[in-house]
């Protein structure tokens, strides 16, 4: 891993590595993620997200002459079209949104991280209309974006910023256990969904943790 990369900007090589690491992490926890989805949803989330991210990692690896923006946007398209469904569209929107924010490349990497999460979150909410508290991936993404913003503002490194975001996502994902759902298949369960952690939010936490582990190793 290039040491330089993580310290200044989100570059091409690093972007591809992040996506590959995310793919590996969700694949390793695929069955657990599906199991989370099985009580309140249709039990396929782990399968969906693992397949989508593997597809994304592949297509990213196949790009020739890419920019960081192109890497993340390619991942977004791959996720959207490989599995489809609500989660394919929304996780795809997250990557695409995050990629768009990389147009401006003269920022320190920590600010890039914060911007990527904010833009990704905005894209997810634009499509999915979910608010924090609705028991969706937004409950992991929104606190992650907020934590990243704060960390970058405090002048922390990119690696530290991602770590803070990942930790916030983990707490956010766990908080969904106490919520009832207002989106996705779980919404029809009403109160019966309480007690189960949201699968999509958990995936977000797994993905950001993989990024943080990678950044730590690199930074």
């Amino acid at each position, binding site marked *: 891993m290039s040491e330089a990369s993580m310290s200044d900007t989100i570059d091409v090589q690093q972007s591809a590595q992040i996506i590959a690491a995310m793919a590996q992490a969700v694949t390793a926890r695929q069955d657990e993620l599906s199991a989370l989805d099985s009580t309140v949803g*249709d039990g396929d989330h782990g399968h969906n997200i693992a397949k989508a991210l593997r597809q994304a990692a592949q297509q990213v690896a196949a790009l020739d002459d890419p920019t960081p923006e192109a890497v993340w946007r390619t991942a977004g398209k791959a996720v959207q079209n490989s599995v489809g469904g609500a989660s394919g569209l929304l996780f795809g929107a997250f990557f695409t949104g995050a990629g768009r924010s990389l147009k401006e490349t003269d920022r320190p990497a920590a600010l890039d991280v914060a911007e990527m999460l904010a833009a990704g979150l905005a894209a997810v909410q634009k*499509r999915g209309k979910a608010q924090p508290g609705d028991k969706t991936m937004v409950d992991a993404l929104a606190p992650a974006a907020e934590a990243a913003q704060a960390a970058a503002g405090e002048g922390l490194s990119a690696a530290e910023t991602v770590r803070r975001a990942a930790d916030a996502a983990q707490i956010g994902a766990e908080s969904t256990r106490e919520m009832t759902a207002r989106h996705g298949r779980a919404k029809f369960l009403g109160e019966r969904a309480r007690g189960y952690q949201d699968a999509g939010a958990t995936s977000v936490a797994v993905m950001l943790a993989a990024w943080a582990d990678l950044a730590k190793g690199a930074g």
Partner: protein
Amino acid sequence: MAVRTKKLINNPQNIVPEMLEGFAAAYPNIVRLTDDGLIVRRTPKPANKVALVIGNGSGHEPAMIGWVGPGLFDVNIPGDIFAAPGPGRILAGIKAAHPAAGVLLCVSHHAGDLMNAEAALEEAEDEGLENVEMVVLYDDISSAPKGREPERRGTAGLFFTWKMLGAFAETGADLAACKALAEKVRDNTRTLSMALTPCAHPITGEPMFELGDDEIEIGMGVHGEAGMYKGKMMSADETVARMLGPILEDLPFRAGDEVCVLLNNSGSLTLMELSILHRRVAQLLGESGIKIHRSWLGAYATTQEMSGFGLSLCRVDAQLKNLYDAPANGAWFKSVG
């Protein structure tokens, strides 16, 4: 609990492409499988008629691959199992239908289907494609209360829109008229579904939901989404009575109305049971002064081998009756005058 964990498949990852290949090889006189995995009519509709396109998660066969053909859809975009296709694939489906006198994209109201369709239409606009409209279809009264119909999900009652809109588009009606007709059928359709046993997800092999040995659930969605009532097993007649009442109240259907009835087998119910159920439906409608134009009993949209059924009513006038009775020739849905 009666979940069939055995499925006759090969690699679970290849279910959809292998299914499409085997399907297209069986019905080459009706459909063609394109290189990008779309099911299109063997003989395309003339360009002066509106093309009907629909995407959907797979696993609901005969819907929708079996509904492509004369008098029905022009293009189906099959997604992964229980997952709507992504925007890129929907856009490819819209393009495959072009150029006809416009494309009407039908969306069965589920979060995934709707979000992907919206994204696809934005991409279509970005690319300057014209004459592409979308209509969102829903029918399940258990998924949102009266007055909030657009929040309801799409289930088996979409059958009526598929059939009547399919016939209408063949008449050469323009895009706006087609969309209005689809909305008219939708707004006159109401469905309630129930399940006796779950099915296994074909990829994970796990049951999609849980039901006790003596339990049923009323108001299920087409992927095992929770319903409004979970209770003890009842007789066929009691089940019908329990389901028909709320349906009649919702529209409401009134004495003097004429309706088409659908009893949709969600997978492993038998036609024997559907017939016994229909007997009571016909009796109760008769008592309510509601006339049946036609009834269809069968598996038109399934959730794998889930056992249960959907009861759908569509209020019809002369126009809709005509469209309903028109011929159709999909691989798995045929109507003869």
